[in-house]
């Protein structure tokens, strides 16, 4: 099907009545996924958003429940959000990150009802990457600029229009609401050309990565990666697959709310015991945890790397640490151990 760019704001307006619509919005020099109130607010002229759209399903800060003590006990009100949502224009890498996060929030024993309820009520309309950024390495992480995995609909920019592919039943139902016409041969060809032209400039070899990480926990290589790291956690806050969080109470006397906030393995307090003992006391241990979690522990547990190659951690690092270089260094090191 085909959707002209000039018609898009009106089509988004149609959705806004029925769904909460999240789309990239310009914020100064960067883009962020935000809930829009009019189709015209969305701006699809972007490589990727500064912060990943995972926050639509797993907000940076969210109330879990509110409570108050009563004479007979405690009154607890759950804050599960079951509103229908559409994330419009997310990149294929970010859609893939949600498939990875599903493993975490529905594990072998427990289901997180806050994430999973939102997940079940959210449609994902992807925007293929015709101009991948220099920091993108999705093709090294089992994805690609036109990857359809996890998406309900995929849009491809072909100049003055988008080629629209409905990929799931829910996606088909959504697209039907737009009443779009079929695409012609010329348009299909333009999309195929765009797909071919979308080139990634860098590739990270991950062939031996897991085998190396399986044996190099005590390797001297970990002494150097963290040396210039400030421990600011920008890499984890901007990562679409990072899922660590803290739980705190915000209350006056005995009445208030339990809240969860994004947290980061790069902070010393993250693992500090009440006694003061810290199993990951320094930058070395914390950097190792971040790499090990993404490229070994997650693979052990879910058979997939917890990285989609979006490059945000590279772009946002204030001291230019580049995860691609770290992964390359790990693979180049000899097999000496302990």
């Amino acid at each position: 099907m085909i959707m002209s760019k000039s018609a898009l704001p009106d089509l988004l307006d149609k959705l806004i009545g029925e769904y909460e619509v999240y789309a990239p919005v310009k914020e100064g020099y960067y883009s962020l996924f935000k809930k829009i109130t009019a189709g015209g607010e969305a701006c699809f002229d972007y490589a990727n958003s500064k912060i990943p759209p995972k926050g639509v399903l797993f907000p940076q800060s969210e109330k879990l429940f509110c409570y108050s003590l009563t004479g007979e006990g405690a009154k607890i009100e759950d804050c599960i959000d079951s509103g229908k949502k559409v994330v419009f224009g997310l990149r294929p890498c970010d859609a893939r990150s949600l498939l990875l996060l599903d493993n975490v929030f529905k594990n072998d024993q427990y289901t997180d009802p806050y994430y999973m309820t939102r997940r079940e009520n959210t449609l994902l309309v992807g925007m293929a990457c015709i101009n991948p950024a220099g920091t993108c390495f999705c093709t090294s992480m089992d994805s690609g600029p036109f990857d359809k995995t996890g998406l309900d609909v995929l849009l491809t920019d072909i100049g003055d229009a988008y080629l629209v592919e409905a990929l799931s039943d829910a996606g088909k139902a959504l697209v039907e609401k737009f009443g779009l016409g079929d695409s012609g041969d010329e348009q299909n060809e333009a999309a195929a050309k765009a797909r071919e032209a979308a080139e990634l400039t860098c590739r990270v070899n991950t062939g031996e990565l897991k085998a190396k990480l399986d044996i190099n926990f005590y390797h001297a290589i970990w002494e150097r990666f963290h040396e210039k790291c400030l421990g600011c956690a920008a890499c984890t806050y901007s990562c679409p697959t990072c899922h660590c969080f803290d739980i705190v109470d915000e209350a006056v006397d005995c009445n208030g709310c339990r809240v969860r906030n994004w947290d980061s393995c790069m902070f010393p307090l993250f693992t500090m015991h009440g006694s003061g003992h810290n199993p990951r006391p320094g930058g070395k241990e914390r950097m190792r945890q971040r790499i090990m979690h993404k490229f070994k522990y997650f693979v052990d547990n879910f058979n997939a790397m917890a990285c989609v190659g979006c490059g945000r951690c590279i772009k946002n690092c204030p001291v230019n640490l580049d995860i691609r270089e770290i992964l390359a260094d790990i693979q180049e090191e000899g097999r000496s151990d302990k």
Partner: protein
Amino acid sequence: MQRNPYLPLPVKLVKNFTETEDRLIHTFTFQFLSEDDEKSFPYMPGQFAEVCVFGKGEAPFGIASSPTEPGFLKFSVAKVGVVSTALHLMEEGTTAGVRGPLGNHYPVEQMKGKNIVIIGGGFAFTTLRSLITYILEPEHRGDYGKLTVIYGARNPGLLLYKDELEDWDSRSDIDLVCTIDRPVEGWTRRVGFVPAVTKEVAPNSENSVAIICGPPVMIKFTMPELEACGFMPEQVIMSLENRMKCGIGMCGRCNVGNKYVCKDGPVFTKAELNQLPGEY
């Protein structure tokens, strides 16, 4: 969908007992406000729960009571942070919350038919108390062989559960060895650190399981003594502690290698821990 694992069940604090002479450890006895809630909380020795002080937050503590003692939950808590301090100050009758039970438990099924050696040090005796009480229950006692308990504290005032220790000492179906670090006037029992006492007691490793909980330095020096007695890593069971928040394997902080202490532990055999990095 299963019950929301983040929601606490309301309980009433029925007893706030000062357990140690230094007043830093209190034992809290809670009762569920509803019978259905109690039924929805079936637990085993070694499991933990998040105890919630409304207005302050929640923190994870090992369950010190045993499932053979229905009607209440017990936790022994050191005054360390915001939540534990609020608990220490809590008046009896106040409503609090618990969520759980969380984590795995001591492998009481696999331990059947075996001699049990329990070694505890200091304040890490809470889930061991649960296990001992479980084994001593008449219905279970016949399932296990000889029960030896080695328990050490810095001084007599820091021993937990003093009344029960006296009771166990007078019984023939449990061999209790209590020890303190340095001699104290009036103390007529053993004096010495747990590793040295373990060496003296020399528990037989044949058809035995050792469960060891205590400060890292105690474990470090007791392990070689157990090995000298012939205990293999598969026969030694430990319970780990790491900082936790969610308790259900999602918040990401308590992992040791690819295992989460909260969800995959806290109980591991030494053989399992030998496969993991030492981040605990």
